[in-house]
């Protein structure tokens, strides 16, 4: 060749530009653009190319373009170019490119097979054979292609495949526009082009067969049959496999063997297309099935990829590959390597730091110009920062789109009819997060298809539409992205899950009855759990849901599940917007600065240790805090960071951050709380990560480094949650009732045969159980069940309260197990509804004849509080006699009432009681009788009050079980007290066994009563005053 390499390069670049231009014009013509301008421009392109080719002595190219020009001239006086011809020209352009690149191309200038249907005005009558582009593999395949170009090509393929798949779906739905078919056709075409260009001949062939089979449909004369669409999907699958294989750098000849089969399938399907719009079911005819049996085996590594970059080739790749994109997006987007963005992010962080320093410096400066410049720097930096963040964001639609295909395939496989609706596809999420949620989403969707949606028959029987619906919704909420996957299938059945869980040993039989719905549903996330009766191909192996939770939690998100049996299941993913930047609370411990991710933070509590009620207490050596009536386990950050440190929490103000770690919530005691800031998360190396305390690090505004605390890790280090603390849920139920914890009392709400709600004081409830009716046996006339190792006598609360008792043999009974003295009793209620924490006042009744303590006046309703002990006593009077031969009690329980003292208002009673319910009930009771009552929350407070010279007391009424200082200790302390040793003392306790009573008397109580019998209590108080007076 007489031309230098440089001249050749120049020619190539120019020709490619011409071809690109030609292509653009053709496509604009195809889309109804102005014919005349486009035609002239197109003609000029071909003509110029011909000339240039001649000059460069590329004879083949010259004749090729000449021929194209000639065909084009046939339309000179027309108004449009028919589609088959546009295709022909497009293919011609591709062939030209190949020629320019030195590939020998045999180009058949006949218009495609379907051209026979072109209107008669068509100047060129064409025969049927489809266009064949045969690229001979002259060069060793792929070996000289730059790696980047191939990568580019492969990701292009991914996009194309997805687009085709989406469009095929639209076409399949029957409700499609011609443009969808056109788009499929164009995509297949560019796939073919690029595949041949990169010498992936087989892939190109495949695309070619697909293209040909679609020809008739594209011409609008035939409708796509189901068989054709299925064949297309099959082929697409194969293309996908090719792409995956190429990416892994391997070769697989077995794939090639499938191509003839696919081709047969495609041709067969395209031959039998129905005319017009009727879609006939031709499926029953035997279609050649080949693809499914094949498993991809990676056999040998691909040829080496040379790093030498051949410029024009690379350029060409972009030209051919991006036909579609040029049209729709034009120059509005470019591809950038993620690593580059990551670098930019890092540099950005640095820039922010420099900015901060400059700002600090400018604060000291007097130079006005400098100050204004630094202000400007501040604004610009913030803006760049904001924009930078956006670069990593991608619409979630990028992955949601794939589910069309997943659901379609599954519904065929499972012979179900499933519609998928997507919404919120434009919601943006960090790219790395998108990748992570793909698998979990797929799991959930597959589960919904397999387990959720019923078969059409069953759905019809249940009065649902035959087609099941799955919807995926994505939206922003509270700085997080929420993804909801909802199906209208059969839902989750509590009993089925529990049964399975018990079978697998995940739950103890005894615990099953009292688990909340949420806890039960959470079971399906346990490893190895599957309720599917049959393991299908699709799901049921019990690995999926476990992976779902792990993956979502790894990126700092949460999974929630809710379900109504028969109606459907909703799974909710809550995902942080981006991993790179998260809002966090900056705190101090000792000299160090730490960050707590905001998603883990529920609330902050400030505690004055000097206050009486609201402070950190020590329970068996462990600090705890009463958060709205519930015990919140506390973890001291100082202790976590330095196990040797000690603190007795005696004084000062402390900060507690209430954190949630998966299912557990706990309080973290913190020295100082600074501020909430957005931090850039930097990874830690594995050694530091393996400490389980830190999840990352960040650089703060002043350039210092702060460690990010790993909240679930800390819970693990502190050994929280091994026994399944349930505080989190309790805390949630209570969250809407902000009252001081001291006033709160927990009740268990139950339903009885009465419109009014009934409640038990939660402290009385030993356990909640469920028994089958058939498990009830009779010991004499007493109904009992065998419970663990004892016989549990049963009492129907309905009967005892005078409501009519309904026995439903089929149902299980809800039983509240109560411990009275040393024996256990089962109280049967209709249903256990909920727990309730309330500070509402209890209207105690003096008469307890009917087994009721009184009523609770909550803002919304009246709740009757049941006295379980009274009920038990009524039913089993022997239980009192047998267990309470209390010598001290006999006097007080004598029927003859003792006259109350003459001037009760002069009598001061000190009441020590830790349970809010009893504190209130007893206080009200005594106050109604005219006494003055002072309350202490525990024995310690009682002693403090006794020591306070401001107060004098005439009687102490005390509970036995109290935190810090219990009743026995209080009595002992009083008896040893210099001034109060003679005070009469009355113990009121639910711990009313003989041993306790004896201990009580030994400790110094004058009387020991079982709680809580108002009449007896008042009587005992009077008696003690009487005695005290006599003693005086």
């Amino acid at each position: 060749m007489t031309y230098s390499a440089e001249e050749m390069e120049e020619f190539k670049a120019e020709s490619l530009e011409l071809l690109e231009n030609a292509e653009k014009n053709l496509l604009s013509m195809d889309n109804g653009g102005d014919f005349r301008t486009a035609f002239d421009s197109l003609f000029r392109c071909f003509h110029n190319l011909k000339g240039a080719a001649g000059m460069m002595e590329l004879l083949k190219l010259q004749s090729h373009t000449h021929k194209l020009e000639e065909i084009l001239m046939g339309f000179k006086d027309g108004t449009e170019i028919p589609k088959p011809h546009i295709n022909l020209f497009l293919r011609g352009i591709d062939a030209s490119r190949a020629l320019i690149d030195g590939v020998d191309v045999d180009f058949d200038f006949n218009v495609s097979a379907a051209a026979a249907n072109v209107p008669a005005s068509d100047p060129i009558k064409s025969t049927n054979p489809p266009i064949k582009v045969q690229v001979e593999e002259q060069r060793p395949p792929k070996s000289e292609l730059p790696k980047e170009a191939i990568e580019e090509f492969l990701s292009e393929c991914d996009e194309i495949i997805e687009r085709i798949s989406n469009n095929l779906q639209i076409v399949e739905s029957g409700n499609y526009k011609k443009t969808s078919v056109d788009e499929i056709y164009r995509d297949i075409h560019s796939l073919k082009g690029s595949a041949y260009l990169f010498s992936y001949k087989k892939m190109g062939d495949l695309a070619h067969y697909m293209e040909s089979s679609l020809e008739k449909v594209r011409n609008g004369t035939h409708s796509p049959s189901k068989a054709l669409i299925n064949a297309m999907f099959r082929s697409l699958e194969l293309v996908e496999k090719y792409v995956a294989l190429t990416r892994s750098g391997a070769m697989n000849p077995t794939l090639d063997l499938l191509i003839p089969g696919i081709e047969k399938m495609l041709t067969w399907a395209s031959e039998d297309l129905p005319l017009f719009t009727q879609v006939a079911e031709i499926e029953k005819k035997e279609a050649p099935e080949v693809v499914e049996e094949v498993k991809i085996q990676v056999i040998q590594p691909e040829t080496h990829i040379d790093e030498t970059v051949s410029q024009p080739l690379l350029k060409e790749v972009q030209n051919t590959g991006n036909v579609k994109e040029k049209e729709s997006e034009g120059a509005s987007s470019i591809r950038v390597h993620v690593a580059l963005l990551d670098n930019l992010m890092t540099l950005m962080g640095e820039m922010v730091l420099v900015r901060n320093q400059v700002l600090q410096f400018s604060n000291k400066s007097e130079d006005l110009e400098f100050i204004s410049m630094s202000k400007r720097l501040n604004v610009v930096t913030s803006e760049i920062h904001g924009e930078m963040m956006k670069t990593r964001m991608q619409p979630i639609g990028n992955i949601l789109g794939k589910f069309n295909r997943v659901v379609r395939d599954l519904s065929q496989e499972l012979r179900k009819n499933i519609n998928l609706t997507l919404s919120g596809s434009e919601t943006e999420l960090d790219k790395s997060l998108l990748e992570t949620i793909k698998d979990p989403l797929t799991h959930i969707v597959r589960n919904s298809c397999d387990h959720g949606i019923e078969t059409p028959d069953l759905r019809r029987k249940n009065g649902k539409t035959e087609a099941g619906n799955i919807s995926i919704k994505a939206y922003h909420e509270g700085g997080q992205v929420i993804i909801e996957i909802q199906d209208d299938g059969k839902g989750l059945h509590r009993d089925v899950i529990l049964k399975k869980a018990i079978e697998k040993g995940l739950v103890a039989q005894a615990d099953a009855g009292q688990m909340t719905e949420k806890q039960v549903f959470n079971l399906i996330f346990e490893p190895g759990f599957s309720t599917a009766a049959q393991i299908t191909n699709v799901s049921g192996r019990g690995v999926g849901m476990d992976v779902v939770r792990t993956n979502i939690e790894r990126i700092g998100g949460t999974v929630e599940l809710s379900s109504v049996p028969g109606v459907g299941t909703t799974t909710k993913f809550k995902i942080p917007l981006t991993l790179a930047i998260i809002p966090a609370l900056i705190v101090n411990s000792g000299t160090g600065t730490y960050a707590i991710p905001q998603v883990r933070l529920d609330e902050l509590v400030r505690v004055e240790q000097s206050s009486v009620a609201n402070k950190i207490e020590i329970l068996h050596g462990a600090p705890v805090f009463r958060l709205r009536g519930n015990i919140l386990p506390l973890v001291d950050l100082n202790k976590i960071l330095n196990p040797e440190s000690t603190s007795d929490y005696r004084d000062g103000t402390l900060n507690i951050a209430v954190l949630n770690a998966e299912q557990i919530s706990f309080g973290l005691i913190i020295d100082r709380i600074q501020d909430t800031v957005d931090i850039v998360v930097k990874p830690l190396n594995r050694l530091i990560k393996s400490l389980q305390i830190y999840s990352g690090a960040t650089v703060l505004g002043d350039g210092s480094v702060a460690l990010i605390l790993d909240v679930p890790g800390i819970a693990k280090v502190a050994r929280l949650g091994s026994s399944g603390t349930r505080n989190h849920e309790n805390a949630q139920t209570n969250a809407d009732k902000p009252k001081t914890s001291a006033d709160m009392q927990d009740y268990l709400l139950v339903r009885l045969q009465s419109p009014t709600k009934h409640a038990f004081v939660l402290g009385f409830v030993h356990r909640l159980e469920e028994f089958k009716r058939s498990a009830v046996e009779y010991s004499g006339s007493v109904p009992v069940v065998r419970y663990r190792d004892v016989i549990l006598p049963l009492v129907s609360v309905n009967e005892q309260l005078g409501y009519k008792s309904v026995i439903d043999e089929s149902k299980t009974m809800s039983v509240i197990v109560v411990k009275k003295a040393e024996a256990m009793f089962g109280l049967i209620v209709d249903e256990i509804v909920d727990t309730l924490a309330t500070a509402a006042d209890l209207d105690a009744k003096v008469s307890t004849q009917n087994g009721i303590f009184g009523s609770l006046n909550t803002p919304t309703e009246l709740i009757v509080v049941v006295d379980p002990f009274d009920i038990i006593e009524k039913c089993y009077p022997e239980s009192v006699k047998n267990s309470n031969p209390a010598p001290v009690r006999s006097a007080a329980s004598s029927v003859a009432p003792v006259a109350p003292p003459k001037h009760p208002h002069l009598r001061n009673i000190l009441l020590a009681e830790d349970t809010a319910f009893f504190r209130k009930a007893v206080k009200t009771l005594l106050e109604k009788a005219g006494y003055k009552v002072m309350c202490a929350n525990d024995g310690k407070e009682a002693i403090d009050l006794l020591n306070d010279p401001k107060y004098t007391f005439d009687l102490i009424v005390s509970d036995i079980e109290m935190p810090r200082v219990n009743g026995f200790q209080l009595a002992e302390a009083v008896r040893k007290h210099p001034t109060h040793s003679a005070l009469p003392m009355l113990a009121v306790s639910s711990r009313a066994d003989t041993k306790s009573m004896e201990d009580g008397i030994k400790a110094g109580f004058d009387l020991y009563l079982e709680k809580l019998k108002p009449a007896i209590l008042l009587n005992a108080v009077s008696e003690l005053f009487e005695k005290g007076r006599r003693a005086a």
Partner: protein
Amino acid sequence: MNTAEMHQANSKAVEQITTFYIDGDLFGIDVLKIEEVTGKHKVFEVPRAPGFVRGLVNLRGQIATALGLRELFMKSTNLEKEKMSVVCKLDGNLVALVVDSIGDVVEIERSFFEPPPDTIPGEIRRFIKGIYKMNGSFMSVIDLDSIGKEFAPSVDPASGRIN
């Protein structure tokens, strides 16, 4: 003069090594493994981490883990002598090796290289790739990979969450 070129040209017989001192002893690391040499940075302590992890440092926005070579090689704990850090990459993470002072970049023939003698205590020997016999002194070449192993215990993958 381009050092990389030079290195390539002589790669067979000669190795280029950055040297530094800890407590008077000469140590070295292959020059190509070193990202940069900087002064001592402010170290932010990591509570509960093993003793040789001094903490985290802010290297112009990147976070590096500062490792005390003194602890690894059981030298005296005379921390005041430490003036420099040698920054390298271990398993994709930046680490700053805290050293006393930086020596020259030396070119040294491989024939002077010998594995560490057996009498050196095992706890130290495992971090030494070998010894170069220099004029009047020895230079211990640090085995970054084995420090990396020390540094990256197998972690239970479930706990490797980001939070």
